[in-house]
């Protein structure tokens, strides 16, 4: 299965992935109306300490703790993709408590928010990877997973 992979040596710390993510998931037609004057709602985030920077988003774990621990059954794994039914989510944030990557975030409406690989939005493939100027973020197939 294709996933988002990050190579921190190549990350410039430009945060473009965060903007592309926010735009891709906004449903808006142009970036300005999607982002201007609004808080940035992104499912990927750049971390670092000034020397090192890297982006982190959902790893789509083969055995995802967020899915096992979800109190409402809103999180589930479908064809390898960890997805969230935000209508079922009550915003308890147990997923935030257990995700080892910090890759599930409280959304502005209270329900949890996470990367779903842009498979359901108009991009069809991760906007973070597509827009990364240095190919520090890629969307590709790596070693085959166990079942």
């Amino acid at each position, binding site marked *: 299965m294709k996933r988002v992979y990050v190579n921190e040596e190549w990350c410039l710390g430009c945060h473009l992935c965060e903007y592309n993510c926010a735009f891709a998931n906004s449903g808006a037609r142009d970036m300005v109306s999607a982002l201007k004057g609004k808080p940035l709602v992104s499912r990927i985030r750049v971390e670092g300490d000034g020397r090192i920077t890297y982006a982190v988003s959902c790893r789509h774990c083969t055995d995802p703790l967020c899915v096992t621990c979800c109190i409402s059954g809103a999180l589930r794994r479908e064809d390898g993709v960890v997805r969230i039914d935000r209508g079922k989510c009550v*915003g308890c944030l147990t997923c935030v408590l257990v995700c080892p990557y910090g890759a599930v975030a409280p959304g502005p409406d209270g329900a949890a928010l996470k990367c779903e690989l842009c498979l359901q939005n108009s991009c069809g493939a991760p906007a973070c990877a597509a827009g990364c100027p240095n190919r520090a973020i890629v969307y590709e197939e790596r070693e085959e997973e166990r079942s």
Partner: protein
Amino acid sequence: MKRYVIIGGGAAGTSCAEAVRRTDPQGEITLVSQERVSGYGRPLISYYLEGKTDIPRMSRVGLGFYERNCITALHGVGAASLDAAAHRVTLEDGRQLPYDALCLCTGSFPFSPRFEGIETVPRRFFFTTLEDALALEQAVTKESRVLIVGAGFIGLKCAEGLRDRAGSITVCDLADRAMSVSLDGQCSVILERHLEKNGIRLMLGNTAARFEGGCAVMQHGERVDFDILVIAIGVRPATSLAAQAGAAIGRGITIDETGKTSLPDVWAAGDCTESTELTTGQTAVMAILPNAAQQGECAGINMAGGSAVFTAGMRMNSIGFFGLHVMSAGTCQGDAAFCEVTETSCRKLYVQEGVLKGYVLIGDVRKAGIYTAMIRDRVPLEGVDLEAVGREPSLLPLGQATRRRKLGGVV
């Protein structure tokens, strides 16, 4: 064909059943649930009262779970006895279920000390099942004065759920603070102020001494009139089946890291069990949903001949009240190694033996799971800037090699 019997259809029971099916596509699985509805997220009952979810959306396992996994589910009937030597469970209606592998996922039951005069209270409730929530929904009106005994998370979640349905809500507790099990005084006061601002009246360090019909006489002598009483003092592991069959039991049914009890071919998982807690190495009952789901899954795999262990059991909780989030995990003892407290927020990290042992966050809880994983994986903190980690969890302390593996590989 192997016969599996699972008692209880909560998070532990359903996770167990699913894991058995995944591991053994052929075996015959029977799940027995005393409750008429199973597979729902128990913590959702307060959200139901609040109107944030409804019965169809409350299913954790999704529509058609039993059909999809070829599980025979018996609802509304309890297991009455267990004969471990004969490998047989007898149900309340006399039916007998022979098994090759059994899992006890009986959860916990609400605990109530014997209050003087409790039998004179006409409308009293517990708050642990969907049925409790539906009964409260029926009973509570805009005029109701509700008294909740117990300011732990169950009592406070009940208060939140009922706030907009009731006339007034008072929560009392013997402890001098809210959520006394997971919060110290410095943290609990933040939560208490927030609850009071949202219309919940708190009486702390003062609980009901006795009841006279619709009146509670408090320990300090005050009289609190109420229409609806909710007892939310705590829960206890439901161990009677296991006890009667002679299983080793402490506070809960004793299990090892594979989920096995002391009885042959009998496993157990969830709130009814006690097992090793990760940060202390001591045996504890950890009555939380993540634990139940993971233990159930582990037991299910092992029952069906697979091989799994669950060694990551620790106390942790994520809970919110009127928009304020409270998270805690692990063991929070001694002085905090990082401490940042304001009127409305708190971040406290506890370090021992060079590793993170526990934390409490109120307000900003973003990325808290990174802390939880640092506790679980015993990430060494030598040379790590604890101030930076305390202010914001990040993957920096893991080091580049680990990050490369985690962000550049399949995990």
